[in-house]
């Protein structure tokens, strides 16, 4: 394998990893705040991809601009789902929320099949296949834009969590809901906003994934496996961890595709995941549970 090809795959790996990070960020945020594993997370991403595809086909709305449409739509939907369903289950039994979101994923998959058929779809814009060359390395435009948009959105999320009152309330709730309530945080409202924020991060990833990869209703099963693995590797609830793990997965896939065989990509990544979990069960950036201290 030539050095150029290796460099090419590393560039692709970083850019793809950025998009993975964006889609995984909502999952880890929701887990951090609610201890809810949202199995429907990837189905929501695919739903957002379909919405963006539909907006592009019917209204000619650019998929990157459609992010401004899907994010608020899914924010509201997320808040509704939290209010109507998850609020009643949170704090009761973890398996129950997993079952509910699992069922939700299947409902979304069925809905997509009914509305958009089970055919492969891809969001093809006139600039979809453009690329430019830097030092002999081809950088596909859509992948660069996706990576950049993902970084901007992740940076925004980072600032919201770190610098705003809402972010402080979310972090307080993540650490200890009861203490947060004691100091005046409206835990229920904060939890709802955090869930809605997590879902809208998923939605923001939809148009990007839809431009990068073909999708059909059951693709979300492929994605949720990747996303859960990213979140576990990074450390449950850790945004930084999810980002690092996502880039590791992106690199593992792209580099193994050219260095060995595509079959090796998941093997290498999951081998790494298991290795990390054996040595460091809380994941790369996860923290020890208070109960075990």
């Amino acid at each position: 394998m030539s050095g150029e090809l290796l460099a090419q795959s590393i560039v692709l790996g970083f850019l793809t990893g950025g998009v993975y990070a964006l889609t995984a960020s909502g999952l880890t945020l929701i887990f951090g705040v609610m201890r809810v594993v949202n199995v429907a997370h990837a189905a929501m991403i695919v739903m957002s991809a379909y919405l963006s595809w539909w907006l592009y086909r019917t209204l000619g709305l650019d998929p990157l601009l459609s992010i401004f449409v899907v994010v608020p739509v899914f924010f509201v939907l997320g808040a509704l789902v939290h209010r109507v369903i998850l609020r009643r289950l949170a704090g009761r039994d973890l398996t129950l929320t997993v079952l509910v979101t699992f069922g939700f994923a299947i409902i979304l998959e069925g809905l997509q099949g009914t509305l958009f058929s089970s055919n492969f779809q891809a969001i093809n814009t006139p600039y979809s296949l453009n690329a430019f060359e830097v030092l002999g390395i081809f950088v596909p435009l859509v992948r660069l834009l996706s990576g950049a948009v993902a970084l901007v959105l992740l940076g925004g999320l980072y600032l919201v969590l770190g610098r705003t009152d809402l972010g402080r309330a979310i972090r307080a709730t993540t650490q200890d809901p009861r203490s947060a309530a004691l100091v005046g945080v409206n835990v229920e409202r904060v939890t709802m906003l955090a869930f809605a924020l997590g879902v809208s991060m998923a939605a923001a990833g939809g148009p990007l994934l839809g431009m990068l990869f073909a999708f059909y209703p059951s693709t979300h099963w492929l994605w949720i496996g990747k996303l859960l693995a990213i979140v576990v590797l990074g450390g449950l609830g850790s945004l930084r961890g999810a980002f690092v793990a996502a880039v590791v997965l992106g690199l593992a896939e792209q580099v193994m595709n050219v260095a060995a065989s595509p079959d090796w990509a998941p093997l290498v990544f999951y081998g790494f995941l298991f290795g990390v979990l054996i040595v460091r069960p809380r994941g790369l950036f996860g923290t020890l549970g208070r109960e075990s201290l």
Partner: protein
Amino acid sequence: MVDSSQSMVSPGVRRFLVGLVASVIVVAGCSGSASPSPVASAAPPASAPASAAESSAPSAEPSAACVIPPCDQPIVIGVSQALTGDKSDPGTAIEHGYQVWVKEINDAGGLLGRKVELKEYDNQSLADTAVSQIERLVTVDKVDLLVGPFSSALTIPTSAIAEKYKMAFVEGAGGAPGVFSRQFHYVFFVQPAVAAKQADPFVNFIVSLPADQRPKSAAYPQQDDPFVSATEDGAQATLEAAGIKTVYKQVYPPTQTDFASIAAAVKSSGADIVLGGTIFGDAVGQVQAYASINYQPKAVYFTSGPSTVGAFKQALGDKVNGIFTGDGWIEASKATGNVNFVAEYHAMFPNEKEIPGEAAEGYSVGQVLLAAVTGAQSLDNTKIADWLHANKVDTVQGPIGWDELGRPNGSFLLEQYSNGQLNVVAPSDDPNKAADPAYPKPNW
């Protein structure tokens, strides 16, 4: 940040989540959904019983008065089809072919004077689901006849069930060696030739090029699929024997959606031509990835994908031009009965501007069943299989006959897109040939 030293994830919760991730990985690894199989029946509800008097109405098909009771019951044909999942495009296309045939035969008075009904399950492109559905169709639903799924990957396991119950398994999309290597008596592949010969017309064309134009090297990026590997291995052996070096060969899983780095590796190998071992979505993914890194091979051949014309063009637009594929049928084919099939298809599916090749394969399966049941004058599957081993049937893919293992003995057509149209470009003596092969292909 969200994580902090105070974050609490109890060990029990963590153990549960790790277990959950592991099980999701397993589910995802099986490339499909874990949801229960939805059951669908494509056929309209059994209409008024076809009496002997009704079925003798004038018709274009060789229907007859009902000879096999119960005459008031439809003849039920069982099928487990890939209607969702990664094979859903071609799977649905075959299904439409079956439906056109069923409508046509019922309009003409039925099969041996009885109405025909499809009993259909969606196998979600999963082999184990397909196997249990075929088992159910035979033992619980007690269907009279079986037809096959898309594609070899699903035909190989399901045909074993049909063989076990001595049910004729007429199928339009399972031509890999694995279908025939078990020496079954009841399987019949309804295409002009087996998978290993699918790329022959393309390979012959490449080898026939004058030495100064002939490509020096070829790349074989291919999906892990029995049909694909049969076609690719056959082509690779012949091209290597002709001195065309293999500079890239890589097998990717059916779940592969990202072809960027594979395309980069193919480009880096400097291959003059690409023989993509594809099913559908991966053909689209490869073209997009090649185009986006400006890799311009002299010729690109895909084993499957381009013949699903409408969906392929919708996904790729004018990037389809110059792409080769091998198939047994095109919409403009002059084969017997094709005009009727095309008209009927467009009437039933007015939203589909172009008929996918797989639909013709499904329709041909119906034509073969009609000929065999009529020829054997029986629903006894052993008699049907014996009849098929001894006879040829005219289909919209041309006349097809079978050897003792159910392998067809004809040859494929070489097809190529130009101006958004899929044309037959070889062999030169074929009545459907509409253009000469374009080589080298235009840039993406």
